[in-house]
């Protein structure tokens, strides 16, 4: 399956309607193709789906664990468990899931109709999923570090410090104003930046 054929099957794959053989070929290609991983994440970002999403349906809080389990079991069946690829796929899938959740937050009326509402459990669940992905990718980055130039490592660390500072500031503000959807969006944006940076840094350290 080449890139073009894979991209024609995005929707069917995400919907789970792809036949098994095609699904296996799809995942096999996706494992080794950063462009398609990115395109998949991009196509299923809120920008692509904004016109079709409902305005008031909350995303399921356990979306990511289900995806992770499904991916893990499929790969075990095929006997091809490869940690770096899994991490990359996990990051991409998490971005997709988080973007969908972010979209739903975004599509609510702004300013929030109910400013006194406590932060949703969805945001809490989303943060814990981002945190887990971030920890996994940080470990993978440590393994990749010897293959990166010292200057690159310094840049990555500097960028992570900037993101972490922004994340801390946004979370602190959200703690003071828990119902603020705009602040929740900024927290999600900072997490998204962090996971994406870690994924990219890990990818750079992969042998070609």
């Amino acid at each position, binding site marked *: 399956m080449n890139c073009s054929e894979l991209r024609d099957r995005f929707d069917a794959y995400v919907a789970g309607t792809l036949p098994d053989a095609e699904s296996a070929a799809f995942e096999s290609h996706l494992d080794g193709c950063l462009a398609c991983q990115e395109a998949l994440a991009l196509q299923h970002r809120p920008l692509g789906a904004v016109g079709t999403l409902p305005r008031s349906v909350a995303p399921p809080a356990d979306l990511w664990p289900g995806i992770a389990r499904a991916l893990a079991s499929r790969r075990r069946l095929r006997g091809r468990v490869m940690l770096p690829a899994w991490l990359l796929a996990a990051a991409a899938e998490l971005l997709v899931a988080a973007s969908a959740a972010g979209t739903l937050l975004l599509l609510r009326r702004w300013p929030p109709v109910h400013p006194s509402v406590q932060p949703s459990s969805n945001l809490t669940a989303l943060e814990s999923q981002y945190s887990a992905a971030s920890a996994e990718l940080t470990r993978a980055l440590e393994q990749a570090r010897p293959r990166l130039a010292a200057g690159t490592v310094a840049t990555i660390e500097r960028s992570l410090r900037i993101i972490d500072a922004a994340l801390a500031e946004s979370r602190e*503000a959200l703690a003071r104003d828990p119902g603020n959807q705009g602040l929740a969006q900024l927290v999600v944006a900072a997490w998204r930046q962090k996971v994406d940076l870690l994924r990219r840094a890990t990818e750079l350290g992969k042998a070609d």
Partner: protein
Amino acid sequence: MRRHLVAMLLVLAAPLAAQQKIERRIAIAPDASIRITNMAGLTRITGWDADSIAVTGSVAPGAGFFFGGRGQVAKMGVERRDETLAEPGSTLEVKVPRGARVFVKSGTANIEVTGLRGEVECVSVSGSIRVEGSLKLLIAESMEGNLNASGPMDVVQLKGGAGTITLRGARGDIMASTVGGAIVVTDGAVVRAHLETVSGTIAFDGSVDPRGTLESVTHSGDVTLRLPPDISAEFDLESFDGAIVVGLAGKKPDREKPLKGKPVSFVTGQGGSHVIVRSFKGEIRILKR
């Protein structure tokens, strides 16, 4: 003294003597997938109207050049003992069919792409990336280098870090993000655009499709959008600790004094487009072009 001078000249000349010139060419399909790796130096790719790949350039001392492929795929690159070193670099000048799908990987090497109309993906650690053309898809990432894209591309996804992202003449769907680098969009006519940076600034000058969306998100960077004075759009603006200035003359609200810490929502014309700006402490300016 003379002996020293001769010895010094020999030392200086040695790397030049060891440079390996390359000149290779193979036939390939017009829509082939081509992968190019050159970690240090310069990779310049040009689209041409021939069903072949032609490579010229010079390979750094101690490095090896590989090149192969046929039909739908081709692969080439420079291999070095230590890929993390910035020097010495190699220069690859590659001509490929205009409709080819091209993937380029670099460390410190700069990447330049012109004249293609297919799909291009460029990944660099610290090199700059410059792409010109009418592409169906452009994906470019650099941790430190600047990203520069110009031309009417259908889908553009640019991810930077410390470097600046510059987009000229962008059409269609755009996603651009940086950590500390600025994002600058000029002469844009976007359908869906998502611009996001942590501490960099965002400057957009262009129009939004009547049913399109322009979303900008920063933590501390300022956002300046220059839009057509007659834009029909729904605006949602919010900066939690930064000023908001709306300078679309004749539209409501037309604020002379900056608003701070309060969300601003308003509609111009009949609505249609959706302009969203969210920042934690950056200033938001909505101005007319």
